């Protein structure tokens, strides 16, 4: 059996696939696994083709809330009209998968985490296209959250507890909390009893809400978005600390992408707030718009991990 989760996970709402009574769901479960295999195959097939007239492929990462599939269909249609080419959103489990796909040319654009961006930028893989504006600023931060009824008030009190990271290449979900521990004189490798990766900010919130993790560090945008859209989940968690602010995870272009396409894509993204449909889509994402920033805006993100005794 291939390692499905690593190869790729299209985050389908699993619950919709499990309906009916127990014995039925057992057979459905096999169908589920089979269905995932088929989906993975279907998604992998066009990859080597890389035809010029194929769809424009944009990757979504943990930086976005990725389980609103109908929304991304509508956004893809919107961008497709602007670009004059079909647009397809692609999801992968981790940032590394995305970076790898950018390296091999399987992707054209991607919405990546700030830390992944500086890594890819330094590797000469991508160029900055646009930075989202969230609540008036192209900034976000890391929230340290704990279960709502937890007595914890500070990250330092979570010693010997379980902690949920998002992704080893996530700024707010990994680098920032480790930097905070380091600044507090703790060894992040041994501070917690157990750690695990959820590969998604939303699921990190869920892990804390369910008390599987005693704490987590999450993207402030994702937490605020979920607090507004799914308050029943976010309200089971409590923010105990907010990190300093960083430039928001940006939309990037693969360096080898057709300059004309890149120009059109950049225009389409940056002008979204100019038309009604674009504003409605932005509103659904709780974003005000996109802005073009110099790559130096992310220097602060780059500065953080160099001082970390990383793994």
């Amino acid at each position, binding site marked *: 059996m291939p390692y499905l989760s690593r190869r790729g996970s299209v985050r389908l709402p*699993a619950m919709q696939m*499990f309906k009916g009574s127990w014995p039925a*769901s057992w057979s459905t*479960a096999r169908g589920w696994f089979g269905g995932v295999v088929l989906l993975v195959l279907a998604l992998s097939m066009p990859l080597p083709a890389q035809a010029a007239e194929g769809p424009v492929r944009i990757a979504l990462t943990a930086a976005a809330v990725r389980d609103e599939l109908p929304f991304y269909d509508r956004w893809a249609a919107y961008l497709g009209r602007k670009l004059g080419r079909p647009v397809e959103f692609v999801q992968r489990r981790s940032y590394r998968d995305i970076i790898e796909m950018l390296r091999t040319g399987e992707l054209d654009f991607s919405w990546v985490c700030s830390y992944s961006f500086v890594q890819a930028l330094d590797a000469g893989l991508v160029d900055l296209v646009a930075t989202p504006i969230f609540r008036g600023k192209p900034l976000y931060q890391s929230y340290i959250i704990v279960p709502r009824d937890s007595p914890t008030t500070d990250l330092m009190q979570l010693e010997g507890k*379980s902690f949920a990271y998002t992704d080893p290449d996530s700024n707010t979900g990994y680098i920032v909390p480790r930097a905070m521990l380091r600044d507090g004189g703790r060894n992040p490798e041994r501070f917690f009893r157990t750690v*695990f*990766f959820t590969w998604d900010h939303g699921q990190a919130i869920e892990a804390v809400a369910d008390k599987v993790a005693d704490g987590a560090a999450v993207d402030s945008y994702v937490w605020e978005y979920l607090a507004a859209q799914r308050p029943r989940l976010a309200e089971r968690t409590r923010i105990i600390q907010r990190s300093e602010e960083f430039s928001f995870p940006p939309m990037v272009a693969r360096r080898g992408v057709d300059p004309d396409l890149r120009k059109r894509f950049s225009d389409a993204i940056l002008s979204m707030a100019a038309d009604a449909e674009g504003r409605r889509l932005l509103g659904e994402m709780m974003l005000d718009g996109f802005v073009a920033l110099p790559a130096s805006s992310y220097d602060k993100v780059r500065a953080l991990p160099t001082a970390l005794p990383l793994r």
Partner: protein
Amino acid sequence: MTMLRPSAWSLSIKLPVIVCLVVVGVAAVIGAGVVGKDRIELREALSDNARLLARWVAASAAEPMLRDDSWSVYRILRQVTFEGGSGETEVVTAMVLDREGKVSAHLQPGENPIGLPLVVHGDSEAKLLAAALGAHAPMVLEDEDGKFVEGIAPVFAGGKYVGVVRVRLSTRQLTETTREAALVVLALALGLAVLGSLIGIRLSLGAVRPLRRLADAMALLGRGNHAPVTIKGGDEIAQLGESFNRMAAEVAGKQRLERELAQSEKSAALGRIAAGVAHEVNNPLAGILNCLSTIKDHPEQPDLVARYLPPIEKGLHRIRAIVQDLLVEQRAEHASELCGPECLDELRDLIVAEVHGTGITLDWDNRVDAPVQVNRPRLQQAVLNLLKNAAQAMPDGGRLKFSASLDGGLLRMEIEDTGIGIAEEDLRHIFDPFFSSRKGGTGLGLWITLRLLNSMGGGIEVRSEPGKGSVFHLHVPVEGEGHGPAQQ
């Protein structure tokens, strides 16, 4: 009190009760069987579910466990138990433990932190945990209280044992289903009981009504009325009715015959009495008339009057005696009086005089020790008659024995002689009027004695052996029997 004795109940109650009990019993036995079987099957299904869920989790969680991906393990556990636990199956808890018994994932993550050994409370929980950690193949355990079943499946990744899955399913649904089924069976049994009672009542009415008609007809028959009963059908009860009708007809015929016979016997007895009276009265009358005729024919011999008056008087006395004997019941007073042992002892003197010089010895044994209320003249006459009879039965002497005693409310007397006895064919007739085996007797003595005793509510029995003697047993009901004088 008879209500408490089932054997005393009416058939119309007994039959419905029996039918009802049988129906309820059958319904209850079948129902219990069905419910029991149902429960076993449901329990097996529950166990299968627990095992399948555990195996499902184990199959899905193997890879993430190998990678220490606790979040994925938790998501699989939550998802499988949520999906598998919907509907009939209620998941109490579920967990994935690593090979050392530490929690990899738990449905109650707050109370069971991952990465720490599972904390168990109580012996039964510890036993279950030990059994789960020792499991090398999927299996199902049950808790001691029967509250849940636990499916256990070891997790193997790449042929290596990495942990165990425990899925606990509640038996509450099972219990509820069983209870509902039991309620349905109970309701069914009650319904059948009502139905059975109705059928029983119908049956018993069908069976009891003709029986009751028969019983009523029999009661009527007992009072002498014969009404035929009609019972439809050809069953045993109908046959019984026909038999009864035949029997009743026969009884009626017999009764008619008996009535006719009694009538003719009465006529014959009356005739016999009339003939006896005529005969007995005729003899002295003939003598008297003869004497009167002689006196009338010989007016010249006045001495004839003096000569014939005594026989005339004697004849008239005899006629009067016969008439008085016939009127015995009118003659004697009905009033009873208090009468002690002396009542009988008075008779002793009379009979002593009677037997004087006849070679008869008298054996007198009067054990009456308290006064009793009795019709004295009748009692005395009846006893005296028998004593005289006994004396006359011993022309060549012998022994006359009299004894009397009080036995409860009865005065018992026995008169025994060693005389000539009574022939067997005569025994039946000795109490008939004008029956006499002795010359010169009126043949009314024993008849009168019997009538006297009967008039007092008493009776007489006789045993006799020709040549050896006779015994007469008398009994008369008395009042005031007791120790010491009667208080009346």
